[in-house]
């Protein structure tokens, strides 16, 4: 056993660094853009762009999600903040589910990873939109006057100044007063803090993917990866455990692309931004159980259904 580890340790380092080097640039772009939104663009301005009608809001939420380069850790607090300011719940859910999957950074990363198999990219985007619209549509039934958010410790559901778990000390009103250089430095400092927070999950995911690739013979991976149902369930479980940031999860999925069925790869790419240990905890922590549980359950069911359809009928 020790000999095996000693023999394969250099390969483990090579594979780990390979994923890490390829994924980190996308994470850097993601944290830089979310920092711009955090420091430069105010929530009020974001709200002005979103319609108030529930059905139009749902479509608008998905459309904004397609344009906003945010991973799931950025979208959950923003969606909560918008709901607390009166945005219809379907619009928030549409944004919440669409943004991490179809935003420009995620799409570019998925293209880079799967450029030799563009079906994966096309299906990820189209199914991502379809699932966001379908699950968001279910929340059209949610009564408008029924509270959707958990009450914060201050008793104010709108108290959402700190969108992320780390305390970076940014203050927009102060930022407006200070010079352009100081704001730029604030932006870069915020990006560095954000990088440290999110990279922890990326490193964990890279390590698990590397261990599986180096120590598990490909023949064994193939034997479990080709079953249409089992492969999907395994990849969904892997996505939840790894909790990779959506802007880089395509590179982790790539590790399994030669051994797992296409539906399983898509299940990983679709469920990862919605239900992983990180985003799932955020959704459960910010929304009331009556919203969070149906949201997570229907999203999971929709991804499972889509992945099985692909494995059995399409690819």
């Amino acid at each position, binding site marked *: 056993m020790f000999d095996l580890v000693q023999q394969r340790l250099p*390969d483990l380092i090579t594979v780990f*660094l390979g994923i890490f080097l*390829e994924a980190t640039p996308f994470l850097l772009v993601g944290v830089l853009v979310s920092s711009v939104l955090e420091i430069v663009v105010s929530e009020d301005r974001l709200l002005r762009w979103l319609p108030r009608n529930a059905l139009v809001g749902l479509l608008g939420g998905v459309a904004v999600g397609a344009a906003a380069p945010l991973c799931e850790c950025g979208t959950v607090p923003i969606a909560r903040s918008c709901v607390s300011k009166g945005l219809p719940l379907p619009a928030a859910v549409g944004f919440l589910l669409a943004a991490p999957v179809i935003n420009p950074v995620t799409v570019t990363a998925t293209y880079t990873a799967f450029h*030799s198999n563009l079906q994966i990219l096309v299906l990820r985007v189209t199914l991502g939109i379809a699932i966001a619209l379908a699950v968001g549509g279910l929340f059209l039934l949610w009564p408008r006057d029924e509270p959707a958010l958990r009450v914060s410790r201050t008793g104010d559901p709108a108290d959402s100044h700190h969108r992320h778990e780390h305390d970076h000390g940014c203050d927009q009103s102060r930022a407006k007063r200070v010079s352009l250089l100081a704001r730029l430095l604030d932006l*870069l400092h915020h990006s*560095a*803090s954000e*990088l*440290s927070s999110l990279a922890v999950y990326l490193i964990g995911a890279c390590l698990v993917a590397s261990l599986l*690739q180096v120590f598990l013979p490909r023949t064994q991976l193939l034997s479990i990866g080709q079953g249409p149902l089992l492969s999907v369930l395994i990849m969904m479980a892997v996505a939840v455990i790894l909790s990779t940031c959506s802007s880089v999860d395509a590179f982790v999925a790539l590790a399994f692309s030669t051994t797992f069925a296409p539906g399983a790869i898509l299940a990983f790419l679709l469920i990862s931004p919605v239900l992983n240990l990180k985003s799932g905890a955020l959704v459960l922590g910010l929304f009331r159980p009556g919203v969070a549980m149906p949201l997570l359950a229907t999203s999971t069911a929709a991804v499972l259904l889509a992945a099985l359809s692909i494995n059995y009928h399409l690819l």
Partner: protein
Amino acid sequence: MNTTLFRRICTASPPLLFAVLVLKLWLTGTIGYYVNGRTIWIVLLGGSLAATIGLGALWRSSEENVNASSLWKPLIFAVPLAVGLLVPARPLSASSGQSSSLGSLQLASHVASGGGGDLFGYWMNALSDHPEPGWWTGRHVTLVGFVAHQTGLPPRSFILGRYLVTCCVVDASLLGFPVQLDRTVRAPDEGAWIQVSGVFGTRYWTDPSGQHYPLINHATISGVSIPSTPYLSP
């Protein structure tokens, strides 16, 4: 060192270390050991961005309010970067789990022909284009690759392999040709990079998944250093 400066360094160190790692790999010409040549620019761009973010975070002069409990995160980020900086760069070897079976021959048709005298891609394409045994018989070949072993090979045989890497090494698939040595030739060590010159014979080897490969016979082998681009590209 005061506390504010220490925290500032902690915040700035992850992106700065990443930038240093990219710089080291670029200067030593070893980024290609980790990612496909066509995506190296993404890594270089990431390194530049990381340097900008790190320097900006280090320079930030306004008042900070960094939570002390969050200082362990930069440390976690620093561990793999330190490993990358301290451990010598090395391409994926024959002992990785990815070499336990040969990749599908469908991949062979997607391999780029290569250049600079590296004909491995050219011969892999031929494997896809010419499944008929008659085409191969008597053709001379000179290839560079590493030695890999597979189950079911004839005696005194090995696979002369190269990994096909589409994006980064995590998606590597082993492609290669079986080589059968004459009794007088000493068998090379597994994982060694060698040059093989030989001739395709009339016999085929069938791997456990049912794919057929022409055997290289009467091979002469010599040790070579690892190429700067050790992987095949699609």
